[in-house]
């Protein structure tokens, strides 16, 4: 008998009775304004900037990140100077990305997270030194329940991710450090 | 309403004053109180050590002794919790079984402004009373805020000063058999708890469970700390 059969048989023999299907509950709303989202995003170490407050996006990038070299972008309003070809991507090429500019499809105010799916290579939001995510202000919802209602409306992407703030660790005597292995900073540009 | 008074074994043995204060308090409020003298012990120490299967003697005996009363009241949350859990399945069991502060609050007997106790008093929220009998709101649970039964009884005692704690409901470290199975840790927990009371200016520590207070008193005496322990019944019923 295969392990699969062994395991399933043991489960069938032992499983308890009486579990009932969860049918949801009326969850309390969480405010979903830009300011609400901004407050939580800042608590988790991220930054929020309104697109209308930035005169020129390219100058802004240069100022924020020290250089405009190796800027990889999938957002039209920012013209990057580092392109990657899906056919010839290598880890070395990915590792050169200094700033990655990606498009988020949803923001969640209760935890400052942004939902991203479908970008060129799954490692980009992690390997970049700095991450910038564009988000539409009317794509901000209050809670995770609403987020999954939206996600469930269509087929789940092959890979999707909630990103909340920059990478972080507190493993060294509970000192919170931003920029563990992933991006050192996260800025959400809301338009 | 006839009350059957249940005085736990260690109160009978070491803190008779708590039993006396409890009895007098209930009588002062006009209740008919009976103390079945054949009572022994609820059996909790055996059960907590892993020998619950030998506690049926104690539980059956308890049930027989107390079956004629409408309400069973005791100045000990942990013993009450134990008896409640074990009488749950006893056929013929119907009574209310209540810890003393819970009983008094439910009966609306919360005005002790006629009594004076000019001391700084810290309240030890015993774990079984708090999380088992819900005699107050525990800090883990979101959305619960009310005063505990013991605070409701003490807060208008004249001249009393109820002090707050840094960790309102951290365990004192008694835990019955725990105190002898893990003695070093039990004493450390007791010491830390007492430090919290001292830091916040307590002169007297009170609570619903003399067992926890006995353990703390043991540490206080050993360390010669400037504190004393009293069951709350002895505060609101002073003779």
């Amino acid at each position, binding site marked *: 008998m295969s392990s699969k059969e062994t395991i399933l048989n043991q489960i069938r023999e*032992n499983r308890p009775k009486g579990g009932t299907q969860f049918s949801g509950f009326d969850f309390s709303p969480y405010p979903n304004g830009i300011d609400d989202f901004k407050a939580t995003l800042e608590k988790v170490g991220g930054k929020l900037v309104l697109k209308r407050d930035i005169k020129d996006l390219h100058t802004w990038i240069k100022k924020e990140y020290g250089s405009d070299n190796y800027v990889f972008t999938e957002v039209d309003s920012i013209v990057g100077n580092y392109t990657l070809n899906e056919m010839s991507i290598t880890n070395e090429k990915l590792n050169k990305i200094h700033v990655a500019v990606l498009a988020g499809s949803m923001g969640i105010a209760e935890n400052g997270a942004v939902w991203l799916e479908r970008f060129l290579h799954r490692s980009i939001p992690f390997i970049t030194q700095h991450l910038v995510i564009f988000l539409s202000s009317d794509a901000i919802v209050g809670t995770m329940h609403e987020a999954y209602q939206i996600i469930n409306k269509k087929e789940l992407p092959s890979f999707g991710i909630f990103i909340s703030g920059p990478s972080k660790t507190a493993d060294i005597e509970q000192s919170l450090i931003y920029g563990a292995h992933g991006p050192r900073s996260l800025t959400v540009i809301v338009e | 309403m006839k009350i059957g008074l249940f005085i736990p074994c260690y109160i009978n043995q070491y803190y008779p004053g708590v039993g006396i204060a409890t009895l007098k308090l209930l009588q002062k409020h006009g209740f008919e109180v009976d103390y079945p003298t054949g009572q022994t012990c609820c059996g909790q120490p055996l059960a907590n050590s892993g020998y619950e299967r030998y506690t049926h003697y104690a539980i059956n005996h308890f049930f027989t002794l107390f079956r004629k009363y409408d309400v069973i009241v005791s100045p000990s949350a942990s013993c009450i919790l134990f008896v409640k859990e074990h009488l749950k399945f006893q056929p013929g069991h119907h009574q209310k079984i209540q810890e003393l502060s819970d009983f008094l609050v439910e009966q609306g007997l919360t005005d002790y402004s006629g009594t004076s106790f000019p001391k700084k008093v810290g309240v030890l929220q015993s774990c079984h009373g708090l999380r088992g009998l819900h005699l107050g709101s525990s800090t883990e649970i979101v959305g619960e805020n009310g005063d505990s039964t013991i605070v409701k009884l003490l807060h208008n005692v004249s001249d009393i000063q109820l002090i707050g704690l840094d960790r309102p409901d951290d365990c004192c470290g008694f835990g019955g058999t725990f105190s002898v199975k893990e003695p070093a840790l039990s004493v450390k927990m007791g010491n830390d708890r007492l430090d919290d009371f001292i830091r916040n200016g307590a002169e007297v520590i009170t609570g619903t469970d003399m067992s926890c207070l006995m353990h703390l008193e043991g540490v206080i005496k050993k360390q010669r700390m400037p504190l004393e322990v009293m069951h709350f019944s002895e505060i609101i019923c002073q003779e």
Partner: protein
Amino acid sequence: MKGHPELAEKFLQDESRTNWHDETLWWVRSKRDAVASEIKDWEKLRDAASQIKEDTLSNLDEYLLEFEQNALKNGIKVHWAADAREHNEIVLQVLKSKDAWQLVKSKSMLTEECGLNDFLEDHGIEVIESDLGERIIQWMKQTPSHIVMPAIHLKKKDIGKVFSEKLHIRETEDPVKLTEFARIHLRNYFMNTKVALTGVNFAVADSGTFVVCTNEGNADMGVHMADVHIASMGIEKLIPKIEHLGVFLRLLARSATGQPITAYTSHFRKPGKGKEIHLILVDNGRSEILGKSHFWHSLKCIRCGACMNTCPIFRKTGGHSYDYIIPGPIGAILAPHRDPIKYGSLPFASSLCGSCAAVCPVKIDIDKQLYAWRQELTGEKSSLPVSFMGYVLKKPGLFNMGSKGLSILQKLIPWMIDRFFKSYTRGRELPKVPGQTFKDWYKKHT
């Protein structure tokens, strides 16, 4: 064989370290309280999470088959491992099939449970722990002392020293500098790895998807840069539907570290183009626990560690005092399944205060299970002395005699009574014998 009391006593000897450890864990508990109180539905979420897990476990075989079917459709390879050894063999097989001699790992308590690292190293595979805390532990040849914060028992000084030894850098205690060194050191491995392994926080039956929740970015970086992603999962990590993730993700990080959510919550449904995902479903005793009426609720655990942060025993004696891969209250109810003799002291390493059950996001009745274990652990043997003690409790005459006897002995030979109860009297005084018992007083006055 050292049980919890001996290990705990040893830990307690360094009082300043004990106090530091206690303060640190209490601070994490306070952070949890602060963020939980921001969620009006917190208690409702706990009820929901508990119900979802109970439903899953009551129908685990069906949900597992649904999950497998959907995962296979998505192109994920699904393996079934009945025990730890089988899990390890599968990981080794995958490595060999890719001609890989190195494995980059992110945090997984399941792989600790299976002893994966030692097994792979015995077979010539270099294992690189990429989670900062786990890497530190690996270098120091220690085991994690907490399931979420593995290096919480270590001070900056200890960490600085091992960094200096392993990376040949000047010794520093600065967390910023240390993190930067770790970033550079580990990124090399991410860049050059063929096979990477993660744990699984949640697997969703209705879509054949699994979710990994992390903060550092190492888990994702490892798997996205590798050719093969191995995901090791305990069979109890399953939930029925995608929308249920809303409930668990609102509870998990808040309970674990006081964050509203982890930095990364990655949903894997299909492998990347040209890549492979191997998901290993591991039983290793879980299906057996499922059949134990007092204990199956422990399988609801989502490994948040909240019980550890609140437990006064854990805070004051540390994870290593439990001497089991999973410490704290949840460890105390899981370990005895593996070895009731070796871990027999763990269910007694508790005052039964109930704080653990009150913080548990999936409402596991941990305190009741600790009590149930105590009954099981003494269960086999009949004990004449205890049986006699039980009998005395229904004989008031005998009981009163015993009570009187104790009073007399305590008055006459207090030092002997102190010695008899020496484990109690080491740090405490016994209560004094009053002039009369309550019964004496009652008989006189009524």
